[in-house]
Every structure is written in structure tokens, then in C-alpha cells.
């Protein structure tokens, strides 16, 4: 009937006010999208349908958790490369003003920023009318204790353990993000016109003797500049490389730690720690994840069982009595 009607219109000689009948019609397109009839899937969460999910979660999580737990616990064995950390507690490196008190341009080797650091560095921006390099509170508060580790042999000289300074920072940090300012061969020249941070003992170009680990690209510095997320943290200090597959990296014995104490922690009631650890495929030792996985897996499994019961009961009840609508 409808088509009839349209056809008729055209026979009549076309509409007077809008030429070209069918093209101009305001009739909506009869498409699935416009008529909201797209093929759809309507999941309804009921005990029956979600049951498998819970069991699957349980079945997946528990083994993962066990795996993680075991891995995490195995970390204790000092095998392979050993990482030497220093730990600070109660040091709020994530404090808002502290985090911002740096100038990444300066650290990236920008010569203008070197001499004219960002305002963010205030009040550690200039000292005695000279720009501070590196500026800012983070750099100023850099951890500068020196840790040395000695193995005390059989009564004889304590043999110093070789602590590798390089390789503790992210590769990208060392090679991209942190750069020494351009200029002459001499690092000191490049930092000419700047002064050292107030708290520092030495200027930035004297952090290390190795020119590849000096200035802004000094890895201890880079590591410090990666501000810790939480007030109690550790930072990688040195690497103890495994010499051969035959010997453990750190053989059993008595060790002697020599600390050159430069860094006061009294002001924030902090504590220092030294941590030696290996890392597994999933990082340092932390039993939490493993436990969490196991726990959640178990809970999920339990809920699955509960739902199974519910589903069973529900089926029964709906069999006996009509669905109470």
C-alpha cells in the first residue's frame, strides 16, 4: 500500500514543492545500524553462566601464584649477578615539590638550560650568582655515602669485592635522557660557569674518574634522579658480576662493609640499609604477588563452588515452582 502511494505521487506529475521524489524523501534508511537492529549478543550473568569463569580463574591463578611464590623464595640463593642496593626509609622522594625540583633540559645537555636552569629548580637554582649544575632539590640531596664490600678470607686480608659501577641505570636514561653539555674535551670546561649543588662535596664533573660515567651521565646520579615512588625505597648501587659458573658470586664467608658516611638521615628520621640480592625473571624478591595469586585463585574457586550450589538449588526450585515473576 505504501509503495502504491508513492508511485502514485509520481504519476501525478511529481510533487510541486520538492523535485525528484524518492531522492528527497526524508524516510530514514532501513539499515540495521540506523534501526538499531545490529546483530547483538546479550549475555546475562547468572549463576549458571558465570560458573566456569570462577573455576577457570581459580585454576589459572593458583598455579601462577605457586610459580611466583617459588620463584620469589628462590631469590635468596646468591647465584648469578648479585645486585647491591642501598635503601633509605622515610625519605619522601615522591614529594610533589621535590619531584619537580629538577631541570630535565639541563640534564639532557642543553647548554642554555645549563647556564639558566628552569625555575622549577628554585631555590636550588643558583648559588652565589652561578647556576647550579645539576640544579634542583633532587640533585642537591643525592645520596653520597660510599659503600665498599670486602670478603674476609681465612683471617688474611679482606679482599675487596669488585663492585661494578656501570650498568645500574636504564640504558635509555644514560644514553638518551641524560647527556653532558656539549663543548670541549674536558668535562670541567663543559660545566664552566656553573657551580656544584650546595650539599655536594664535589662538582658534578668530578663524580667519577671514568669519563663515560662522569658528569650528568654518572650512573649513581642517574639512579638517584629516578625518584622513588614510595618513601621506603632502595636504589641500585652496584653490580657484583659472577666471575664464573663454577663459583658462586659471593661465596659463603664473612663480609665486611665499609661505609663512608656522608649522608645524614637524621632530619627525616630515616634509616639506611644495604641490600644484596639477586633478581629472578620477575624482579626482586617479593612474596606478595605469589600469595595474592594463590589467595585470589582459591577465593575464586570457592565462589565457583558456592555458585554451583546456588545454581543447583535454583534449578531445583525453578523446576518445582514456576518462576516467580
Amino acid at each position, binding site marked *: 500500500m505504501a509503495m502504491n*502511494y508513492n508511485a502514485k505521487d509520481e504519476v501525478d506529475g511529481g510533487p510541486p514543492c520538492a523535485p525528484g521524489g524518492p531522492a528527497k524523501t526524508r524516510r530514514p534508511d532501513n539499515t540495521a545500524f540506523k534501526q538499531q537492529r545490529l546483530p547483538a549478543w546479550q549475555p546475562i550473568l547468572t549463576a549458571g553462566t558465570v560458573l566456569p569463569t570462577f573455576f577457570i580463574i581459580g585454576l589459572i591463578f593458583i598455579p601462577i601464584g605457586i610459580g611466583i611464590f617459588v620463584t620469589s623464595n628462590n631469590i635468596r640463593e646468591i647465584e648469578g649477578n648479585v645486585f647491591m642496593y642501598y635503601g633509605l626509609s622515610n625519605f619522601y622522594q615522591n614529594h610533589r615539590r621535590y619531584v619537580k625540583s629538577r631541570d630535565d633540559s639541563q640534564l639532557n645537555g642543553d647548554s642554555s638550560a645549563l647556564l639558566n636552569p628552569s625555575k622549577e629548580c628554585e631555590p636550588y637554582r643558583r648559588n652565589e650568582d652561578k647556576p647550579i649544575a645539576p640544579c634542583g632539590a633532587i640533585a642537591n640531596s643525592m645520596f653520597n655515602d660510599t659503600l665498599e664490600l670486602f670478603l674476609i678470607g681465612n683471617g688474611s686480608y679482606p679482599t675487596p669485592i669488585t663492585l661494578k659501577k656501570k650498568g645500574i641505570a636504564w640504558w635509555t636514561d644514560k644514553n638518551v*635522557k641524560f647527556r653532558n653539555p656539549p663543548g670541549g674535551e674536558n668535562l670541567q670546561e663543559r660545566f664552566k660557569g656553573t657551580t656544584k649543588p650546595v650539599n655536594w662535596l664535589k662538582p658534578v664533573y668530578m663524580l667519577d674518574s671514568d669519563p663515560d660515567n662522569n658528569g650528568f651521565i654518572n650512573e649513581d646520579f642517574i639512579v638517584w634522579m629516578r625518584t622513588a615512588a614510595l618513601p621506603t625505597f632502595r636504589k641500585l648501587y652496584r653490580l657484583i658480576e659472577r666471575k664464573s659458573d663454577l663459583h658462586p658470586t659471593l661465596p659463603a664467608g664473612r663480609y665486611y662493609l665499609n661505609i663512608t658516611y656522608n649522608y645524614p638521615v637524621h632530619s627525616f628520621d630515616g634509616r639506611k640499609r644495604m641490600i644484596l640480592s639477586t633478581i629472578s625473571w620477575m624482579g626482586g624478591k617479593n612474596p606478595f604477588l605469589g600469595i595474592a595469586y594463590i589467595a585470589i585463585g582459591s577465593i575464586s574457586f570457592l565462589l565457583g563452588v558456592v555458585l554451583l550450589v546456588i545454581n543447583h538449588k535454583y534449578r531445583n526450585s525453578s523446576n518445582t515452582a514456576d518462576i516467580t515473576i
Partner: protein
Amino acid sequence: MALSVDSSWHQWQWRVRYGLPQSPSEVTPLLLPEKGRRSYNLPQQRVVFPNNSLFHQDWEKVSRRYPGNRICTTKYTLFTFLPRNLFEQFHRWANLYFLFLVILNWVPSLEVFHKEITMLPLVIVLFIIMVKDGMEDFKRHRFDKAINCSNIQIYERKEKTYVQRHWKDVHVGDFIQMRCNEIIPADILLLFSSDPSGICHLETANLDGETNLKQRRVVKGFSQQEGQFEPEHFHNTIVCEKPNNHLNKFKGYMEHPDQTRTGFGSESLVLRGCTIRNTEVAVGIVIYAGHETKAMLNNSGPRYKRSKIERRMNTDIFFCIGLLFLMCLVGAVGHSLWNGIFEEHPPFDVPDAKGSFLPLAVGGFYMFLTMIILLQVLIPISLYVSIELVKLGQVFFLHNDLDLYNEETDSSIQCRALNITEDLGQIQYVFSDKTGTLTENKMVFRRCTIMGSEYSHQENAKRLETPKEPDSDSEEWTQYQCLSFPARQAQGPATMRGQKGAQPLRRSQSARVPIQGHSRQRSMGCYETSQPPVAFSSSIEKDVTPDKNLLTKARDAALWLETLSDSRPAKPSFSTASSIADFFLALTICNSVMVSTTTEPRQRITIPPSNKPLGTSLEKIQQLFQRLKLSSLSQSFSSTAPSDTDLGESLGANMPTTDSDERDDMSVCSGGYSTDGGYRSSTWDQGDILGSGSAASLEETLESPAPGLAGPEVCYEAESPDEAALVHAAHAYSFTLVSRTPEQVTVRLPQGTCLTFSLLCTLGFDSIRKRMSVVVRHPLTGEIIVYTKGADSVIMDLLEDPACVTDIDVEKKLRKIRARTQKHLDLYARDGLRTLCIAKKVMSEEDFRRWASFRREAEASLDNRDELLMETAQHLENQLTLLGATGIEDRLQEGVPDTIAALREAGIQLWVLTGDKQETAVNIAYSCRLLDQTDTVYSINTESQETCESILNCALEEVKQFHEPEKADHKFFGFHLPSKTSSTTSGTMVPEAGLVIDGKTLNAIFQGNLEKKFLELTQYCRSVLCCRSTPLQKSMIVKLVRDKMHVMTLSIGDGANDVSMIQAADVGIGISGQEGMQAVMSSDFAISRFRHLKKLLLVHGHWCYSRLARMVVYYFYKNVCYVNLLFWYQFFCGFSGSTMIDYWQMIFFNLFFTSLPPLVFGILDKDISAETLMALPELYKSGQNSECYNLLTFWISMLDAFYQSLVCFFIPYLTYKGSDIEVFTFGTPINTISLTTILLHQAMEVKTWTIIHGLVLLGSFLMYFVVSLLYNATCVICNSPTNPYWVMEDQLSDPTFYLLCFLTPVVALLPRYFLLSLQGTYGMSLISKAQKIDKLPMDKRDLEIQSWRRRQWSSPVSEISHPTHHPMPPIPEQDFCKSTPKNTSPPKRKHTEDLVLHGQRCGREHVRDDPCSGNSSAKLSSGEHLLGLNNTMASGAYSRGQNDVSRRSKSGSHRRSQSSLTI
């Protein structure tokens, strides 16, 4: 083409404020000394000089200062757009809040994020809204432009002629020539009309919604013009009042050169927006133009509507603010405490630039502000934008719904308000207009009863039932007609060939021409311009298929009528023939219908075709008649010589002979007349002529290039559609109204004879008398006859007392006729027909003369003129003889009862507010099942407040007995309980109550502070009808219900009289089509049919609501969840306001990664399919009860957000605790986890997955990684001072990251998932049940839906299935109020309070009181006995049929007793 006047008010305000003071337009001091004119009181008056050569200079000086006719309803111009829009946007407090935050962030010590970045969200929000506003305004601009560029004929001084110009070129003082059907461009003083009597007809539908024609008069002294009006000769100055907004108030005077004045008033002013009708040409001078026209001044801007969700949201935002405050307080206090524990400043506590530290308290305060900035996302700014976008999407789908598309008008739904789509899903009250909204506003003659015999017009009924309007395919229609008259086919084709062979073709042609023009316009959807050329003249109204039986009788009657001239009948005949003749004459004469030709320009036929004195034409007829009698008595009338003069003239003297030849032919084909007549009825006048004329004359008439008056088709222009219907009906029986002048009316009889009655007096219709009368002198008998037609209730009381008749037979007969007519009337009313009684009275010359002088006296009197006139009417209209009654159908629109039933099932209360009279409204209410036959209907008609109060009290008491008090709760606590109440009421089979109330009573209620009682009563009523209500009352009712009951209201209407109601309601819906565009212009949504409301509300409303509501809840959840992560971090960063997530990533998180899924969700998700929603209207209640978004769901989602954020923060925290994790490296997994959690949460919310959902969710997730990787890889120092360089890459190479991202979302979502599944298993809500049904395959679903419905309506359905076995309980009756004094209620009484309590009973014969006694007792039926009776069924196909059957099977009359109680 309607007026675009919405929001012009602002414009006007602006002009008033700035425009007028600068241009003291009314002051023309320069002119005064120059011309030496009398000074005008210019601050109060406006002076208009005509724009012709004579006054040109004056005109230039003055009119320049008046605004032109260009209208501008836009809010902005190109230059003011930016500042104005910003200004308006900052009115929204949320925007101000964000501006405040941005400013706060500029304070150095508070700077949490980059200053510039903080502005980003705000700027984006402002920009999007700005674009949207700009688009809307541009649309308005285009509309203005279209209007401004409409054409009109303006008098051009230089060319001395009328030139076509645009509306915008019209200036005050211009002469405008308007043609028929043109829309008036400005307020114009009428100076000339082509009508000889100086009258111009207007249709004011655009202004007030009234479709009847209004008359405007040319200014006195200009009416007697010959031919054309000559503007150059106009040498007067016009002085009138300043522009104001009173539509019916206008006065001024015209100053002639000789200083004399002519006054004029609003009767000479034609207003902008009206349409010229029936007047070929009218000329006037522009008085007010543009924004100063009354129509524009009358239009206040639309109310800014805020949706319910938005209101709800605002309260929740206050919760959020409270939460924010709390969190900031924690931060501030924590900061102070934390700082306090250090005795000296630690190295990480960085001093300010000067090296100094803030004192603890100040530091805490600053921290507070810092935290506000940090946690600002808690107040979801993006939510506002998202809501706007979602609504745009929803509107898009609304527009594209095929079900809301109307083929006929080629129009889909128009959404004019973009911000309240979801309100459609929460409607609790619907206020509907009646005419044009529920009905088609097409009055169709259905049945009639004459002298006690009913003519059921079966064919006519069949015609009306054909679904398609016949005018759309007249071929089919012709066919159908042939079929319905088998006699026609029985005729031998051979006998027909000679004279009729060619006729059908020609006829159909002649019939089609006007129809096509009409239907084509309609079908094109140019409804702005396609005002039907004549009101109430669609073919459905015109084509009445006559009843065969009655047609025969009508012809006999006509024949009888013609014999009258021979000899005056001795006795007042009660013969059927005479009565039938009188009946049709009354139909034809007793009205105010004007006759005009359809050809453009339309000409009114005021001159009767025969200008010759009556006598001569009569003689001719008589001669003719005698001759015909001689030749063949029985058939002759079918082909009687057309004494239609024009034809006659064209035929010349040879006519009689051809005619007799013809007659001979005709007599061969016996029985031809009835078929002929039957056919003829569907055609136009020409058809008539053709049918009765000879072949030769036919050719002649058709071929003649300038046909006389009979040539062009005749149109009837009626003030009310009923009148038109009756005239068309009479026309179908070949009693054709040919012309009408104030002095005489000419009727063509079936034989072609024209009878010219001289009109002695016309007593127009008024709502108090409810009847109209004409007094005519019969041209043949010379009798003075009064024809009266009116409401049955009135006419029945005015009939002559049968007891007074001396003749016992006659008395018996009269009684019988009356009883039978009453029975038929009851029958008609039951079918929802509008009934009118036709009566007649013959007056003696003497009586009439006495009455006429009385009348003249009354007309001349100054005081109490109205009362005197009323009294004279009373004197005339009594002792009437009943002729018969008619049943006119105002056809319900398609699907109205179904829609109403569905809406009601959906828990929506439906009120009908109509300006129509009570009887009609009640009839319609029954026929569209707004009221049911079993309902107890209370109707209150009173003017006094006391009576009203007592009636309300009585009714309340009465009704409370049957209904649980629960319903009252519903009233006061709005939306909390309705589902409960409705189920109880339907379950316990309490008779539903209906309330009928009229405008006067409403006034009493409003004045007497009875609103509360009234509303309480309406709580118990299933539906409420307000009749005779003014537009103002309509809007007052809507406001009353909306404000007092705190419910969501929807108004639907089609006319300009519904505008205020539409604007008052929460959602206003306009029906586009019949009555101009005013309702549409002021509405929020415009649909073309009432039935579209069903899908609009039940499906789209539900979807829009549930989508948006759930999106809003989700948004709150999302923001709280995310922001809390930052909050938890504060505990580990010394409450310093530090973040572990890079700010860009945070912004991206909200702007891109998590914004699209909720949008898609808000636009596309369907909790239940459209089919199920339509089949189970009950589901709509979830929206009414705000189930998706209320305090509970809000807080549940808040709690969930807290839990999830705890999990998302602390699992990574515990994992990384004590490690060398860096700030951003710590933040990245948290960010990733929360993203995953939030997206998965969204996925769990999605009820219907489509490919789009999946793609968007997956896309968002992937986009996060892509963007983060890119950003982290490239941003070495871009985001100084902290750069997340290589963080993401580093994390992606860390297995812990993956382990975290796998574990945490599971932990976060586990409880929700578990609870959802429990809810899914045990869920009792309608929605979850419907979802289960929805999942079933088609056939099973239908079964399930049916069984659901059966459960819902179990008791009524069981009743329905055995309606006949139902025992009729005895009906206890109780007299309602104490006294029922016998009082014949003289019309002069000041207050006649009628309390009509209609007890509707089935199976009970209602005994009508003796009509002579004029009053009766009011009875209220108690409710209990109605238990188990046919309650209103749910709609839907399956119950409808049964319902109908059961209704028909009821033996008793259901007639609503029009008993009145006079207190």
C-alpha cells in the same frame, strides 16, 4: 509556513532595552511645525503615514524609525557569538567551578599541573558546547531567513502598482496586497477586501489554534469601494496605540485631511501569522512590523528544560563535592600532621624560591586547595560533554526510526530539544489535547436517525474503515464504490452506453482534480505551506456514502417538498417524507457554512444562482414538474431537468425537450436513480450536474471555457468541522447548499430545483445554549420555520410536550419517536459519535413578528444585552418538533486506543485537556478507551468554590472506600510506589474511576485552594478529562501536577492553544500536521501521529533513559575510582599532592581512553529489545521509578568505586613496596590496571553487545598502549620538569607488570561479577526478567510474553474469557448528595452547579428520566458491585478483540446519564 517566533522574546527584550531609547521613534517633532498638524500624544501613540506619493516624505521620516519586518530570532550574531556564548556557558556552575580550578592552578605555590594543561579540558568542553550552540543558532537563522524571504505584494510608490517583495522589505506604512491563502507578514490594518461587504476571512490557527474562520472588517468608510483599492488616494494619517501583546486589543483612529477621525479596533487588524481565507484580495496598511507585531510580542522564549537525570545528577554532584571536600580536608590535615613530625626540614621538603617554609597551618590550607586541583576530576566535567554527545546520538537514532516516520507527510520525528531525551523514559503523567491529537480532527458523518428510524449507513461505515484514505487512490475507491452498489453492475451496459458511457471517466476526472492537489501537498510533507485550501474538506469528510434506503426516501421527500407549492398542506404533516425533507433542509440550512469555489482565486458564492425573482423560477419548476409527472412519475426525479440556472441558461430553451427525451431513456433503465445517486455522492457538484444533465448539456458544460457558477466546484467553509460534515452529508443526499448570504440561503434539491430560503434570523451557536437556530421563510409554503440543531441533552428538553398535543395518535407517535431517537442517541454515544439533534418548529407570522421586535429590542439594548439575547433565544427555541439526530464521528487517529492502553499499562496517567465540550470529550474518551464502560465516572461542573469543595470531599470519600490508601502515597512520594499500586488495583478488580471536570470548575478549584483535594481525587482516577479549558488553564493544570506531585509530565498537542501546556510540561510534544506549526515550534519533540507516542516513550524513552542513566552512574564510578587512586597515593607521598601518573596520561585517560566506550554505551546499548518493550509496556516503570539511577545505585557504584580503587592501588603498592620502583614506573601499572578495570566494568554493564561495542572497547584498550608507548618513547624532555621517558617500554618488558595487570582487575571486579550473577539468578526486577525473556528465540519469547501478561492481568483475563456467564450483581444505588430539589433550573440562574456522577454499569438498562421534567437525581454507583466486570484490558491484539466482543455483548445501554444535580 509558520512563524518562527520562539526565543524572539530575548531579542525583543534586547530591542526594548537598547533599541528604543536610542530611537524615540514615536516622536516626530520635525514634522509637526512643518505640516502644522495637531500634535500627537507620541509617547503613548504611534503615528503611521502611508507610503504613497502624498505622504512619502512623512513616511520616510517616521517609518524609518520603526523596526522593519525582518525578524531575527537568533541568539547571536557573528560578532557577539564568542563573548555571549562564553558568558552563557559560564552560567553553568560546573563550568565556573572548572574555571575557578584553572585560575587556582595559576597560583605558583598551588601549581599541581601545568597551567596550560589544566585549561585543556575546560577549553575542549567549552568548544564542543559552543559548536553545538552555534549550529542550533544557525538553524534558527536559516529559518528566519526563509521567513524573511517569503514573498508578498507591496505597493510600490514609484511604479504605482503592487510589486512582489520579501517579507523583510515590509515597512510600517506600506500597503500590502494579500491574496487568498497567503500568510500575513505583519500586523496590517485592513482597508480593502474583495468581498463586497468589506469582510476578510482569516484563519488564526497559527496564533490560537482555532481553525474556524474569523472575520475582519475593513475600516469604516472603506467598505463601499468599487473595484480596486487605490493607495494613492489614501490620504489619511493613522494614529494607534504602541505595540503591545494583547491579541484582541487594538484601537486607533484615522485622521482625514479635513481633521475628522474614523475609529477602528481590533476587528480591522489582521495579525501576522494568520492566513487569509475565502477572500480573493485584501489590501491593508502595515501598522506594526517585525518584532513589534502582536504575534511576536506574544511569544515568550521557551523555558529552559533540565532533564530529571540532570537534576538528580546535580544533587549527586553535591555529594561528590562533599566527598571532595572531605578528601581535601584529609589531605590538608594529613599534610600538616606529617610536616609536624619533622623537627627540621628534611631534604625532600623543598622550600619556596626564597628558601623559606610556610607555616604549618598555611601549608595545610594550601594543601587543601592543591588537593582540590588534584582531585578535580571527581566532579566530572567530561560528563557534561558526554551527556550532550550521547543525547545527540540518541536524537540521531530517534530521527532515524522508521516506526516514527509518517509516509503521508514524509516527516519523521523532530527533536527540537536535544537535552531531554531521557525524560521520555520517565514520564508519569501525560496531558493530551483531544482534537487533532487523539482524533484526526476530521468530522465524518456516520449515521443518522430520522423520525425514530435509524439509518445505519453501513456502506459509509465500511468506507471509513478502509485503512487507507480513499483520496490517495481514487481509482480503487471508484472501484470500491462500484462494488458496493451491485445494482450498478446489474444494469445492462448496452442501455447505459447511450447516455452514460462516457460519464464515469469524466466524473472521475472531475472528482480527482481537487483531491489530487490536496493529497499531493499533504504527501509531500510541506506541511508548513500545505494548509489545506479549505478547512474541513478532506475527501474523507466530504465523501459520504448515502444509505440506500434513506436515499430513496430522501428523493421521495424532495419530491414531496416540491409538491408543497401546489397546495399548502392542511395539517402539520408528520409524514416521513416531510420530516426527511425537513431534516435535510435543516442540515443544509441550519449552520453558518459559507460556499465558495475551489478554483483559485476562491470566490465566495453569495449570489444565488438564480437572480430572478423566486416566483418565476418557481413557476418554471412547477410547470416542469407537472410535465414530468405526466410522463413518468416514478423515475422522473432522477433526471429532472436541472433548473440550475446556469446550466439552464446554457442549455437554452431547448432544455425541457432534451430533458424529456432523456427521461425516456432513463425510464428504460429502471432503478437507475439509486445507483446514480450513490455514485454521485462521491463526486462533486459537477458530477451531480453530469448525472442529471443530458449528454449534450454535459458536453457543453464541460467544454465551455468559462463555466458559470455551477462549473467550478463548490467548497464549504465552515466555522466548525461538525457543520461542514453535516452539509457534506446533506450534499450526499443531493440536498446541496448552493449559496449563502446574510439574507438568504439557496439549496439545490435532488431534482436540481433550487430553493431559496430567506433567512430571517440566525441564532449562532454558543456554549451555554449548546444549540443554534435559523429562522427561515419557506419559499414554497411561505411558512416561517425555525430549524434548531444542538446537543441532544439540550434539544430533548426543549421539545414540545407530547402531552400538549391534542391528537392522541400524534402524541403516541411523538413519544415513540422521542424514545427511539433517544435510544439511537445512546447507541451513537456508545460508539463515540458526536451527536446532534435536529428539530424544527413552525411559527406563525404573528408570533414571529412579536419575537422579532423583542429580539431587535434586545439587540439594541446596552445593558445586560447578552442576557436579553439569551432570553430571546429561549423564547424562540422551545416547543420544538424533533426531526432526528445525527452521529458524527471525529475519527480517532489510527492506533490511539492501543497507544492509550499501552501507556496506561506502563503506569502513565493520562489526562485529556481539551477546549471542547464535555459531551464530545467524554465520547472520545470512551471510544479511545481512556474511560471504560465499567468505570465510575465522576464529573464535576460547578462554579462555586464551596460546592466544589463539598463535591470533592464526597467523591473522595466515595472513592477511598474502594481503593487502598496506597495510592495516596504514590501522590506524595512521587515515583516510589506506582508499580505497587497499579498491580494492586488491577489485581483486586476495583472499578476504575474517571474524573470529568470543566473549565469553570477548574477555576473554582484554583481560586478556592482546592488543588490538594483535587489532586488527591485524581490519584484514584484512572484518567481525568478537563473539558472547556482555556489554554491558560491547561498549562496551570500541568504546572499544578508537575509541581505539587513532583512527577514527570508530558504534554502533547497540535494546536497553538496547546502551546502553553506544551511549554509547561517537562516534555512537550507537538503533533505536526493539521493545525499550523505553533505547537511544533514550542515543543521539544514533534511527531506526526499520536500513536508514535507509544514507541517514542516505551522504547526510545526507556532506552534513552536507561542508557543515559547508566552512563551517568558509570561516569561517577569511573571518576571516583580513578581519582581515588591519586588520593590513596597521598598517604605515601606526605600529602604533598603528588601524582604517580603523568598528567598528560591522566588527561588522555579521561579524554580518550575511557570516554568513547561510555559514549557508545550511552548511544547504542539496549537493555531490552524494542519488541519486548513494546509487548510489555510495564517495563516502562523502571524508568518512572528511576531504577537505573537513584540514590541507591549511585552509592552502590560509589562504594564499588572505592573498593576497586583500593584494589587497584594497593595490589601494586604491596607488590612494589620496598623496591626501587620509580614514581612513574609505579604509576604506569596502576594506570593500566585501572584502565583495564574500568573498561571491564563497562563491559559488564553492557547488556547488548554489538560489533561496535566490542571494537570500541578493544580499540580504547589498544589505543592506551599505543598512545602511551609513543608518548613515553618520544617525550624525553617535552613535559618538563618530569618526563615519563621510556617508562611504558620498561614496564612492558617486566613480567611483574603483566602479572599485576592480570591479577588486579580480577580482584577488583570479582565482587561485582559475583553479585551481578547472583542478581541475574535471583533478580526480581522486571528488567532482569524481561532480559531473560528477550534471550529466548522468537516463538518462545512470544509465548513467554503472553504468559507474563496473563499473570499480570490474570483476573481480568479470566473474566474476559467468559463475559456472558458473568452474573450481574445487583446494583445498590445510593443517592449521592442530600437534596435533589425539583427545579427546572431556569437559565437565568447565576450558578448552576451540576454534579454529575456517572455510574457506569454494564448490563443495566439505564432508564432515562422523563425528558420533560428536565432534571433528575444524581446517583453514584458504588464500586463493589462492579467487581469482576469488564475492567479495562491491557492493550494488545489478543485482548482487544475479546474486549470488543464483550463490550458489544453487553445488552444494556451504557449511556452516561446526563443527570444533573442542582444544589
